[in-house]
């Protein structure tokens, strides 16, 4: 004879089967029960454990068609909004992803009208630009079939969302859900979220929580965090040919790790140069380098202003001594100016260079100033010689526009990244790439070399940055989430810090060794087009479309143990240009700040 609880369970199972439409099974169960149980099903016992009863009742009310999903979401939104402040921050992580998942679920179940209503009503509640961008993309999804095409929807559906909440907050949430019978929301949380309970009721409440509202692969982030980074800069012996070495360039293969004498610091094989080569810093550079620091010793800055560009100029690069300036244009022209003669810059050859058949999106001069690379909409990268005034090699590999290309600090190697979401490593003497860097969910917008040539950083419009190990091609760090697309990157010369400039004008300072964000500041009012660091690591410089150049104190980042520094604490000085958007800023070897801008 089954006891009361069993009876209840039977009743529950029976109702479930009936609702699900398994009539045969339900009939069979009823028959089986009738023979054994004499009691009426519709008279459940009252002395059952309250919580269990509530929970079961809750499931009993699972209806196949939840009509009031909109109201349900409203309820939970208002509830979260109205609860205690501590809990509100924790549960606040839930509101936006929940909206996305509910929306996608509705689409999946082909309840299009409701889905549209849901988004129309609740999307305006979110103001962050990153969310707006995502919602804009998601709103385009109107049919079940489009789910598989939309990258944002795919990201959400393939990954579980992680949230960190305290035990107490989660209990409160469950109670609320049960009490108000918000079954669909409960199911959505079970299906799509990975709830991590923290023992301490005080979950680390920082702005990080708020920023992680957009999509971010948390799991991968944590896994990659474990990797070790060999951040130490190169020693002189790594790239300087000793006196007895008559060979100019040694190995060009990437396998020759064993050949390196530097055991604790294995690196890819590097080209070697004799002392005094144009590729390397000379003694003169070191001797005559201006020492910077603090407010007292600020750098001098030389500005190159371009006029008559008619919005056509896309990119510009300045050589390390400021004597050669290369600019890429929308009409596939490349122009370069030579200033070796008494500061008068003249257009070399008197006419633009022609080679690409699409807009030029990036140019990069080699340290010696004799070669430069250009990347274009036509999917190719070209190597040019400034002496011959023509192109030498075409590197085909990318399928779509190549957004970024950069020479390594020792020349010879270069990296490129583009619309095909891949980064590529090349050497100048081979026309096929040596490494592919895949992992970004969206275009690779910018690539930058680590000063020790072992790593490259890539910034993407999926609002993350990655660090790639050149020796094996693996991603070793995932940095993010950022609040907007990445526009520019720079490593500090000691190799420990990475500065990231975003499209919304924010600048983030990261410690790549620990993989943590040191600071985030509202740097500019426009996209941060360029970043660089002074040769002695005293200043970072950032330039933007808002006609400002900011100098940031790199030293205070080191000395401070605070997790976040305010803008005023690290901003040293601002220069304003006369209505010129700043496209390129770099420190010369003697610490002169060279800036290129386009008059608007």
């Amino acid at each position: 004879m089954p006891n009361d609880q069993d009876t209840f369970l039977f009743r529950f199972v029976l109702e479930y089967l009936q609702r699900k439409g398994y009539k045969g099974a339900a009939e069979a169960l009823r028959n089986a029960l009738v023979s054994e149980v004499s009691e009426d099903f519709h008279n459940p016992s009252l002395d059952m454990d309250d919580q269990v009863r509530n929970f079961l009742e809750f499931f009993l009310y699972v209806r196949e068609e939840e009509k009031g999903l909109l109201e349900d979401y409203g309820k939970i939104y208002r509830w979260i909004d109205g609860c205690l402040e501590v809990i509100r921050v924790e549960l606040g992580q839930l509101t936006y992803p929940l909206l996305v998942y509910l929306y996608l679920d509705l689409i999946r179940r082909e309840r299009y009208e409701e889905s549209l209503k849901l988004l129309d009503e609740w999307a305006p509640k979110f103001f962050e630009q990153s969310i707006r961008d995502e919602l804009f993309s998601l709103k385009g999804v109107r049919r079940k079939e489009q789910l598989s095409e939309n990258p944002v929807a795919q990201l959400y559906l393939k990954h579980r969302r992680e949230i960190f909440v305290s035990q107490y907050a989660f209990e409160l949430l469950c109670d609320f859900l049960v009490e108000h019978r918000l079954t669909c929301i409960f199911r959505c949380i079970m299906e799509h979220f990975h709830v991590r309970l923290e023992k301490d009721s005080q979950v680390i409440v920082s702005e990080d929580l708020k920023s992680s509202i957009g999509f971010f692969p948390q799991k991968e982030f944590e896994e990659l965090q474990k990797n070790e980074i060999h951040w130490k800069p190169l020693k002189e012996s790594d790239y300087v040919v000793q006196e007895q070495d008559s060979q100019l360039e040694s190995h060009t293969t990437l396998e020759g790790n064993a050949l390196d004498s530097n055991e604790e610091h294995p690196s890819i094989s590097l080209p070697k140069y004799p002392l005094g080569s144009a590729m390397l810093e000379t003694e003169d550079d070191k001797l005559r380098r201006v020492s910077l620091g603090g407010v007292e010793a600020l750098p001098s800055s030389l500005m190159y202003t371009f006029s008559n560009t008619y919005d056509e100029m896309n990119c510009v690069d300045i050589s390390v001594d400021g004597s050669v300036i290369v600019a890429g244009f929308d009409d596939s022209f490349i122009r370069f100016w030579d200033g070796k003669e008494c500061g008068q810059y003249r257009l070399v050859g008197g006419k633009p260079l022609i080679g690409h058949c699409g807009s030029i999106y990036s140019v990069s001069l080699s340290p010696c100033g004799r070669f430069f690379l250009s990347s274009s909409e036509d999917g190719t990268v070209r190597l040019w010689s400034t002496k011959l005034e023509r192109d030498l090699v075409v590197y085909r590999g990318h399928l779509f526009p190549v957004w970024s290309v950069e020479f390594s600090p020792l020349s010879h190697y270069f990296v490129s990244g583009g619309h095909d979401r891949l980064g590529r490593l090349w050497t100048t003497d081979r026309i096929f790439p040596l490494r592919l860097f895949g992992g970004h969910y969206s275009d690779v917008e910018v690539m930058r070399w680590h000063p020790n040539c072992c790593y490259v950083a890539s910034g993407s419009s999926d609002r993350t940055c990655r660090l790639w190990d050149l020796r094996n091609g693996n991603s070793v760090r995932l940095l993010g989430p950022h609040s907007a697309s990445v526009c520019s990157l720079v490593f500090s010369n000691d190799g420990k810090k990475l500065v990231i400039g975003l499209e919304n004008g924010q600048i983030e300072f990261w410690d790549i060794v620990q993989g943590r964000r040191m600071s985030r500041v509202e740097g500019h009012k426009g996209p941060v087009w360029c970043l660089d660091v002074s040769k002695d690591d005293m200043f970072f410089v950032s330039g933007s479309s808002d006609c400002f150049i900011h100098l940031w104190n790199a030293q205070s980042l080191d000395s401070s143990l605070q997790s976040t520094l305010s803008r005023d604490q690290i901003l040293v000085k601002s220069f304003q240009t006369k209505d010129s958007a700043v496209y390129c800023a770099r420190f010369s070897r003697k610490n002169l700040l060279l800036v290129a801008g386009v008059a608007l």
Partner: protein
Amino acid sequence: MMEATLRKETCQAVAQYILGVESVSEDVSIAIIEDTEYRLRQLLQESVKFMRNSKRTKLLPKDINSALRLENMEPIFGYSAPRRKQFRVVKSCPGLYVLDDDLVDLKRALDEPLPKAPFEPALEAHWLAVEGVQPAIWQNPLRDQLKDAKTTSESVPVEALKPLKHALSKEFQLLYDHVISILRDEDGEKKKACLRELARQPGIQQLVPYFTLYIHEEVRLYHNFTERLFSVMQLTRALITNPNIHIEPYLHQVMPSVLTCILGKKLCSSWMDPHWHLRDYSSSVLGFIYKHFGPNYATLQTRVTKTLISALLDEKRPLSTRYGAIVGLVSLGVCEVQICLMPHLPYLSQQTEAELHRSDLEDERKLSLAKIYGALILAAHVCLKQNEMKGIDSEVSRNEDSDDYQETNIYTIHIETCRSFDTEEKNRILSFVPKFDSLVEVLYEQFGDSMFPTVSNYF
């Protein structure tokens, strides 16, 4: 942006009017419109990437076209003209925007001369900062335009300053000496470049009092050296046209020198010297000051006009002074010519003409009289011209931009226009402006036909 959605009626309308499909069922149109919207969003997302990588903050038609090419679709041509097209609101139907699509006559378009080729991109290098301080050069934003990123919250305490001795740094002294020596001795390119810099550099503010003193002294000491005075006037012109410095406090020192160069009795060592040019040039400087600083500088306008009129009407003054008074008045503007000069015009012209026809004249006097007569005709013409094309301000200001010695002849434009008139033309003008008949009558009475076609005879 979030609210931008397409409606199914759009699909039906497109099907009907563009593709000629009579009826599209509800389901189909909804499906099509939803897919269209999805594609549009995709397109927008891609084109924003092109915008970003072109380092622009404004989305242009070419970005959309690049995104279309990326998706293997045909770009839409005709919207990427350099002249930005503006959408206009259709009044009868709010929420509907259209592009202007003018009809172009093919023949005319072909016959038209080609538009000017755009300038080549150019590069200029300059100092943005020297050891952290932005120098005051015109390539940098001015100090009062600087929006300092670091807003200093503490207010600056107001202090009453004691009168200071103005100390000039060594660099400024060198610059001053250099500029003066160039103005005095050089001619041609170097001088031109020097004047051009003086007319735009904000950094010379410190030197302004010294320059004004120099102007004053030069005019006082060398009032017989036309060349020298001309250089001084060029300097004056450069200073007053520099938008980046404040010269208002020193105007009271400059004005007498300018007026001297217009009205001076003898601004030359021999009567063959081109002092007429000097007077013309100086009066254009005067006109500039009058128009730019007059409204803000109390009593400047009345004082100038008073001086000029008294010089004009004083019979004892030499002819050169009276000539200067006339061109000075003309340079001030039409209004002043009409109010101050017109009442005296008949008398002056009769007197001049009568004397001009005498046979026993010296060359010098004859030239002076001819000059005056020409100036009077110019004044008359300015009035006439103004009345003819009402409201279009095309007067003397037109030759304000010319720095060149030869081009400063104030009449150049007017003579050209006068030459083009003939009697019929004059009659045509008369018929056009019946309202000013009386004025033309008066002028015609005085000058006869010479007012239009024969002005040049006297020069």
